[in-house]
């Protein structure tokens, strides 16, 4: 069974998406400071407001390009599942709603699974697409997470899940609720294999999604201002009949209350995640010899790689570790693993990565 459906060429892909997504209005208002943002500048700043630093939503494919080395990755095909198990109908049929969303977005479901490397470390990413029915989790999304976990285990890769979801897909009724345990079973497989399971909680991560796989990561990272919580604000307000505290359910609030490990700006995510993976995956096997020999891990050293742009984390432990010695055997294994990905990717002859200036950050 060939579960690698296709290889995405970032340059071409983002071109396609740009065409689709160029807004009629080239300017938009920042939800944070109400400042006007020009679409091209906003894109250059990774959808982070260049006036106030507010992190706007960013398309999941752009996110994958930002995180994976050289913006390259292999998309993993997801299994077909029953689409409308309840024959659900509200004011509109769920089946129609689903079809409309699919044709509008050109995507099958609210989850994308892809594999590649981050700062050389093999990673499977399962990313939610908020534009697809609010990133809600139904059978297809749950199955995507299971597939992502299985792939990570098979490839000895870390699993990074990036939720952006209002919660359960209520049009699938109980079949959406059971995705909570199903997703936890999935990430449990990764943990049992001794592999890192990281969660990057993005805006928003709420309801059944926050109360399942998103809260059982080895490490929880979030972006500034992201909304994270179990119950909706309105429900809470109606229950307690009082105003909610300032900054309630933001990433910073969760950080203060011990629920996440760190809040990281978008431009620093790759370096931070790369460093964490390096520490987690090397220490365990190499007896503290760290990221020795990481020098060559990005395939060929000739490209400076996206690392240059993203080496802006406060303290760059990763590059410090890189100056350490090499542990040959493991390094070879890793190279071999990376090569498989690299070979296909190089056929895409994709040296020009998408514009990823960190100007706004």
């Amino acid at each position, binding site marked *: 069974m060939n579960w690698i459906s296709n290889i995405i060429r970032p340059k071409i892909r983002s071109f396609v998406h740009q065409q689709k997504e160029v807004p009629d209005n080239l300017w938009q208002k920042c939800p944070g400071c109400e400042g006007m943002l020009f679409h091209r500048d906003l894109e250059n700043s990774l959808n982070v407001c260049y006036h106030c630093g507010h992190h706007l939503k960013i398309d999941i494919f752009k996110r994958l390009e930002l995180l994976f080395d050289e913006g390259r990755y292999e998309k993993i095909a997801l299994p077909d599942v029953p689409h409308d198990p309840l024959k659900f109908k509200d004011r509109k049929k769920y089946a129609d709603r689903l079809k409309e969303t699919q044709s509008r977005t050109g995507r099958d479901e609210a989850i994308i699974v892809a594999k590649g490397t981050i700062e050389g470390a093999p990673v499977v990413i399962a990313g939610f697409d908020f534009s697809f029915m609010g990133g809600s989790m139904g059978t297809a999304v749950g199955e995507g997470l299971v597939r992502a976990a299985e792939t990570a285990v098979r490839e000895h890769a870390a699993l990074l899940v990036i939720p952006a979801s209002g919660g359960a897909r209520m049009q699938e009724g109980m079949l959406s609720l059971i995705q909570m345990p199903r997703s936890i079973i999935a990430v449990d497989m990764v943990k049992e294999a001794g592999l890192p399971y990281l969660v990057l909680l993005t805006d928003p991560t709420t309801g059944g999604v*926050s109360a399942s796989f998103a809260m059982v990561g080895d490490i929880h990272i979030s972006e500034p201002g992201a909304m994270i919580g179990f119950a909706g604000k309105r429900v809470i307000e109606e229950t307690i009949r009082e105003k909610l505290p300032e900054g309630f359910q933001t990433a910073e609030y969760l950080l203060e209350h011990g629920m996440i490990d760190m809040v990281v700006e978008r431009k620093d995510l790759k370096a931070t995640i790369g460093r964490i993976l390096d520490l987690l995956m090397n220490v365990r096997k190499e007896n503290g010899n760290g990221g020795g020999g990481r020098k060559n891990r990005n395939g060929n050293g000739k490209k400076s790689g996206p690392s240059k742009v993203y080496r802006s984390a406060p303290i760059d432990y990763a590059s410090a570790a890189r100056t350490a010695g090499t542990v040959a055997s493991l390094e070879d294994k890793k190279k071999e693993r990376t090569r498989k990905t690299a070979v296909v990717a190089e056929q895409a002859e994709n040296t020009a990565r998408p514009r990823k200036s960190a100007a706004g950050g």
Partner: protein
Amino acid sequence: MSQLEFEKPILELEGKIHELRNVSSNGDVNIAEEIGRMQAKADRLLRQTYGKLTPAQKVLVARHQNRPHFLDYVDRLFTDFTPLAGDRRFAEDHALPGGLARFRGTSCVVLGHEKGADTESRIRHNFGMARPEGYRKAQRLMDMANRFQLPVVALIDTAGAYPGVGAEERGQSEAIAKSIESCLHVGTPFIAVIIGEGGSGGAIAIGVADRIYMLEHSVYSVISPEGCASILWRSATQANEAATALKLTAQDLLRLGIIDGIIDEPLGGAHRNRDETVDRTGAVIEKALGELMPCDSASLRQERRKKFLEMGRAA
């Protein structure tokens, strides 16, 4: 409040029967006959009404205040109940009591949501809506079951996890997620029964079991019909339609492969014959435990995982 609108004709009839019984204490034959006729009519009405309850009506029956609640089941089915309190971190949550007990000779862990029986106890139990402390205590109990190889019985009856500032602050999401994880790690037989209302994440947090049963008129749903209606229909008044669309009845969920069996309620619902309801539930738990007790820890965990992984794949 405890009266169901659609039961009105039955309740009137039952009221009259009750009155007649009071005046016929001297053994009037005519009155006794009349009572018999009326009782037969009431039973017929009950059978008709309860034989075809709509999903929305089932939601009301499932929430009926006179249904047996967690502590009623514990009283009647378990001996030596030894409630254990606290999550060892913050507080004791009375919405989710639990502890050690003996079920027909077998020492076990029993836990569940308690909605309360009167105004005072309902407030004390927070109407069965647990906070993170409750779910962390549940984790504690499941870990204990693991450590001492005790089977777990979970009785589910909640509108949902409590939505409050403190609950969010202390990590309601994390508490529920970890509770689900604890369920999956239990290496002993694990039976869950939805005895009333199975409300979303707060319910499934203690419901990831080897065998999942529902009482005949209980409901289990990802969201309340009212909540669903206000989001998808933009009006809470469409809750009846939402209740139907959500497929939240025991009968629907058995068809969808979410649950393993339905426990028949006595004629007219659990609230008309509480003891009988509890006894029937006890019989089902006993049978399920009997089947699962011989299994070893590894295969129980494995099978539980498989069960959930297979759910919905071929709906």
